């Protein structure tokens, strides 16, 4: 292989990497500096403290959604931090979500295996290793407002087996619109309660995320 071809391949790789890294950002306008800034956890917490809610585009709303998927299907656009619940007549309810951070995102076709109100949260061993303060919850943290799973959990299964991924509420509502989770889909508690009431066990869940690992089976 010639040097020119190697350099060409390296350039393509760099451009592709930059595109992927750039693709998942939201930006917020700073009127003081008159510039667009990355919407990161600091910006998101400041926004939530100031306005008491998430940005408008992440609030629950009915939108046009032209799909052949049957009503009741959930479609997750992880890149744009939206979850769609398909309605009849080419409409959907769109909710804002938080998704997996770099390396924790995934894509695939799964289904709703079970649902729970005020679920118990049990931190995985690796999480306790990273943060020993969580050891007191090794046997499970009871459901409640401080519980990271929030008010409801919708457990995602594939081929009858638990994927370990869930759609759940959160004790950090400011994190909607960000990629900060360990692969779960988080929603504000009011939204996850709304979705929980609508979605049925066995409903199809399609997760789209550019550049993410495909969940096995696809």
């Amino acid at each position, binding site marked *: 292989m010639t040097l020119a071809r190697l350099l060409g391949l390296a350039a393509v790789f760099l451009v592709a990497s930059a595109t992927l890294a*750039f*693709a*998942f*950002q*939201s*930006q*917020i*306008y*700073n*009127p003081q500096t008159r510039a*667009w800034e990355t*919407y990161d956890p600091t910006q998101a917490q400041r*926004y939530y403290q*100031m*306005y008491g809610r998430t*940005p*408008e*585009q992440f609030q629950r709303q009915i939108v046009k*959604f*032209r*799909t*052949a*998927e049957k009503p009741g299907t959930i*479609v997750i*656009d992880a*890149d*744009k931090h*939206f979850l*769609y619940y398909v309605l009849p007549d080419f409409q959907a309810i769109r909710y804002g979500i938080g998704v997996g951070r770099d390396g924790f995102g995934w*894509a*695939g*076709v799964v289904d709703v295996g079970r649902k729970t109100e005020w679920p118990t949260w049990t931190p995985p061993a690796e999480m306790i290793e990273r943060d020993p303060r969580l050891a007191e919850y090794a046997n499970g943290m009871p459901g409640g407002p401080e519980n990271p799973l929030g008010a409801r959990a919708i457990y995602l299964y594939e081929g009858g087996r638990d994927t370990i991924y869930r759609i759940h509420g959160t004790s950090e509502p400011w994190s909607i*619109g960000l990629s900060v989770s360990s692969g779960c889909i988080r929603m504000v508690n009011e939204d996850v309660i709304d979705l929980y009431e609508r979605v049925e066990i066995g409903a*199809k869940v*399609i997760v*789209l995320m*550019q*550049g993410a690992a*495909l969940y096995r*089976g*696809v």
Partner: protein
Amino acid sequence: MNHGTRLSIARCSAVAAVAVLAQGCASQSAQLPEPQPPELRQTSQTAPADLQLACAAEAARVYQVASERVLPISSSSQGSTYTVVLNADGAEAVCTIDEEGTVLSLVRA
């Protein structure tokens, strides 16, 4: 008019002026619009989710693959059309679709 009466009138006028000013301030503050939240935008130029799924449905039909085995894995915008790369049962395919949801082309990668 004696000195006491003049003083009373002056006091009344001062109180009235303060009241008018206070009312003016109050009505002015009531008219102030609430601060508008700053605008948020997304840099992601991926295709809308419904268009990605339209491409996946077309690939499932053309390649006779179960719809659960076809998944969009990346997409990009070219103005009024989108290119969607699909994983169709392990093989890649590239779909072009317009904003109206019409599939313009579908080819194996």
